[in-house]
């Protein structure tokens, strides 16, 4: 059985769906953050698969940028979570209702 582009795309879609489930289902803000990272990684996998399929390297350069930006984003996001924890003493989203109308 030959592994085609569609197999890679399907696996990336499953990973993205799992990340989406995590974002909606979990209440812990850190796990939600991890799930967002997972969705980014799923997009990365799609990029690399298409890059290989088209025999062009531009997709891989994009993944390089995505990884860099994701790392910066994680640093800022975790700093925000720490600041939030200092203020509210919680990381559960149901306790963070200050902006709720």
């Amino acid at each position, binding site marked *: 059985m*030959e*592994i*085609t*582009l*569609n*197999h890679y*795309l*399907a*696996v990336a*879609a*499953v*990973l*993205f*769906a*799992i990340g*989406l*489930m*995590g974002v*909606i*289902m*979990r*209440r*812990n803000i*850190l*796990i939600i*953050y*991890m*799930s967002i990272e*997972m969705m980014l*990684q799923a997009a*990365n*996998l799609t990029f*690399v698969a298409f*890059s*290989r*399929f088209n*025999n*062009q*390297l*531009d997709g*891989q*350069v994009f*993944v*390089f*940028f995505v*990884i*860099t*930006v994701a*790392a*910066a*984003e*994680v*640093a800022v996001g*975790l*700093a925000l*979570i*720490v600041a939030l*924890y200092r203020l509210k003493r919680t*990381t*559960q989203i149901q306790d963070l209702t200050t902006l709720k109308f």
Partner: protein
Amino acid sequence: MNALFFWLFSGGMIVCALAVILNRNAVASALCFTFSIVFMSGLFVMLNAFFLAAVQILVTAGAVMVLFLFIIMLLDLVAMEHMPRQKVWMGCTLVLALGFLLLVAKTLHATPEGFITQNSLKTSDHRLVVKPQVRADGTTVDIVLSQNDWDKYDDTHRIGRLLFSTVPGKTSYVAPFEITSLLILVATIGVIVLCKQEERPRPRSREEITREAPPVEPKEKALKT
């Protein structure tokens, strides 16, 4: 053989990803995510993206997940592990995810199978094959590499050439690269500003206290209060 490794890596990746969102212990979730990233690097290797596989392990599995574990252990998250699961809500998200997957499955079903060929990279893209060379009289000329030369390069070399090549009229990644460095600088400063504690009064030494206010007589103190 190829198929075996594909199923091994993708299966491991999916199982670890599921463990991330189903685990109650945040530390275990983070470790599962690390394993998921390692499996994904395996898939990258199968797609001939060796450089990205290494970067993925170093940056995401190494640096980012260490940061996550650091924060999880810094904030005490033990108390939240005993909250009851919300079964109905979990069912709703599962339905949503399955709907998404159904959509993707239908799309993939409608598209023809994309066979991944073992062709070498295309050299029709002239950004990749230009190599400036300095002549004896000091002028530079662009020499177009042959397909043979291009095939000899490894993955990292090719990405580096594509990333830093500046051929006029072609897409160049030099400006995005520099902007990314600026972004990281801004992120670093932002993190420091966000995490900076309010300055607490430092405990003063005995000499400082006595120098500022000479010890009051017991009588006066009693009057004041």
